[in-house]
């Protein structure tokens, strides 16, 4: 007798496909939030499967902070072309230039929280009623309580104490005009699951995830890449190290780790032996105990 059960990766895949199809069926104008990171690439890959042999029926939305890794933007453009999809870009630089938001000051200034305004503007201007994201519940404690279909009020805000209960596989995307949803098809995946699946499906990801030589400085316990936006502090020196990135955010705040992992097999091996969480190298999450929760309440990814 053949086995009539799925292994855990197939079950996670099937769950994500189910959620993506529900988004398509329940919303008028959904988009995939695309950052160029592995999680949004995974969501894109799953969307390809969910609608095969049709094309992915969603446009893509990228919130561009202006502080990107050039490799990420190249990867994004190639993928969008390959998928024959539409790309909507919300520009943080433009929001700064027009005075919609003000740049943070000081040494640890980032454009992280500035993304919120740009994201919400892009959602509103494009009449998006559901933004599909690659958020995972294992990333951070505030995300552990996130729903597959997460309701946002007409200010784009998340109220963690007033979330709709989600039972069985029933998803309720009903909403009033002006409100929108975030949908998280890979909620139940862990970092390890993502890498095991990328390896299994041999999904293309930006070269930044593979070990490579790069000029970096040691700051906040990780290797911050040298870029036009980096201002060296006293005592900091530029070194060339063989590093790779576990997550991809802004080039200004995403720290790399020293690594020799230059294949998917080696990366998966390395991740399974990791002793620190992947967001441990992200300055944005180190600000306070509830920095992610605070940003999410305001409308962050």
């Amino acid at each position, binding site marked *: 007798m053949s086995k009539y*059960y799925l292994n855990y990766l197939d079950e996670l895949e099937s769950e994500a496909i189910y959620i993506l199809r529900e988004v398509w069926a329940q919303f008028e104008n959904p988009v995939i939030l695309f950052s160029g990171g592995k999680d949004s690439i995974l969501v894109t890959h799953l969307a390809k499967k969910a609608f095969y*042999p049709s094309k992915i029926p969603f446009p893509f939305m990228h919130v561009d902070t202006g502080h990107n890794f050039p490799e990420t933007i190249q990867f994004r453009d190639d993928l969008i072309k390959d998928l024959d999809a539409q790309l909507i870009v919300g520009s943080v630089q433009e929001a700064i230039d027009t005075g919609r938001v003000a740049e943070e000051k000081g040494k640890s200034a980032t454009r992280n929280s500035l993304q919120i305004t740009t994201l919400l503007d892009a959602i509103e201007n494009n009449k998006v009623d559901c933004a599909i994201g690659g958020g995972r519940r294992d990333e951070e404690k505030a995300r552990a309580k996130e729903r597959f279909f997460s309701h946002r009020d007409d200010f784009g805000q998340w109220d963690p104490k007033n979330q709709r209960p989600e039972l069985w596989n029933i998803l*309720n995307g009903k909403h009033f005009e002006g409100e929108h949803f975030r949908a998280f098809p890979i909620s139940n995946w862990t970092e390890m699951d993502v890498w095991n699946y990328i390896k299994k499906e041999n999904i293309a990801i930006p070269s930044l995830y593979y070990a490579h030589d790069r000029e970096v400085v040691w700051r906040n316990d990780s290797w911050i890449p040298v870029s036009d936006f980096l201002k060296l502090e006293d005592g900091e020196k530029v070194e060339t190290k063989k590093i790779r990135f576990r997550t991809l955010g802004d080039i200004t705040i995403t720290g790399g780790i020293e690594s020799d992992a230059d294949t998917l097999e080696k990366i998966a091996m390395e991740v399974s032996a990791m002793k620190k969480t992947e967001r441990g190298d992200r300055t944005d999450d180190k600000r306070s105990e509830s920095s992610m929760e605070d940003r999410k309440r305001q409308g962050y990814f």
Partner: protein
Amino acid sequence: MELDNNQLLRFTTAGSVDDGKSTLIGRLLYDSKSIFEDQLAAVETTSKRKGHDGVDLALFTDGLKDEREQGITIDVAYRYFTTPKRKFIIADTPGHIQYTRNMVTGASTANAALILIDARHGVIEQTKRHAFIASLLQIPHLIVCINKMDLVEFSEERYNEIISQFEEFSSKLYVKDVRFLPISALLGDNVVNRSENMKWYQGAPLLHTLETMHISSDINKIDARFPVQTVLRPQREGFIDYRGYAGRVASGIFRPNDEVTVMPSGFTSKIKSIDTDKGELAEAFAPMSVSITLEDDIDVSRGDMIVKTANKPEASQEFTAMICWLHNDAAKPRAKYTILHTSNEPKAMIKEVLYKIDINTYGRDEENKDLKMNEIAKVKVKTTRPVMIDEYRDNRITGSFTLVDDATHETVAAGMIV
């Protein structure tokens, strides 16, 4: 780590801070080496600040800001860990009576439920409540952890006494598989590692139990049900006439050439192919997401269900169900709701409340028929169009539904068809 055949097991833990639930989860994560250094460092710092000796394991499940401030769990939190044998998803739910709705939510997808009993106190009201919800939601496996054995001198006699207390009331419930375990979450006895203090206990520790429990038969493989989510019409080269019905198999097994009926229309056809992006499949079973093409060009859309002609669900506009009220606003008699049942969503109303159940005593209340948040009742539901139903006991997908308030769009009730 090669995990090719490893399954996913979802379990729920209901309980309060007092009975050691958070400590147990922390212990499982810690002893199975699922805690990262930066998480451990954060918890060590907080433990010190709060004046605890050593690491307070309960802090690993620390949640939202409000919850940290109040020291209680408000909402369902999901946690993950993996061992060489399985991947686990924990739905960590609060145990207080006002959070029944969260327990119900966490229980709805669980293969197993952990019920914690404080060995000093034995079976209390909360234990009965948790067992009732596990039984109502038909969680296939129940693991009763008798915790804090270190505080009753690891007494076998006390352990057996609590088992008797539990069995006395649980005989009124419908649970297929119940196991008991004497543990100390604080010291780690019988959680991941076998207890040195309770040699009299011959069974496996908790983690081993979770790793080896047989869960493949938790899914219904008899009644083939395929709710259609959406229709795929690519209209591009190579697929001009393609018409695939996309969905996730709810139960049973489908194969090409199977005689099928589309409900509620009643049209019959044969399965032409079962497709995925990797090619055609020889069979599809729950919970696989696939798309199905049929031999005949018939009208099928979202809300319809493809089933085997020889084994059909009931198409009904009136049925009886147990419901749990989830919302602050009480149920309005004969008010209209939208029912979400598989991919089908007609209007519905609660025609009659037959009785409410006291989840602490299991007594029936046939007098008061107002239905408030966290209350459970047996009701009659009427819908404007037929829904294709099975009994919840046989099928957790086609036997369940939720009700949505049309005025607020909030999910207000969860229902199980009896």
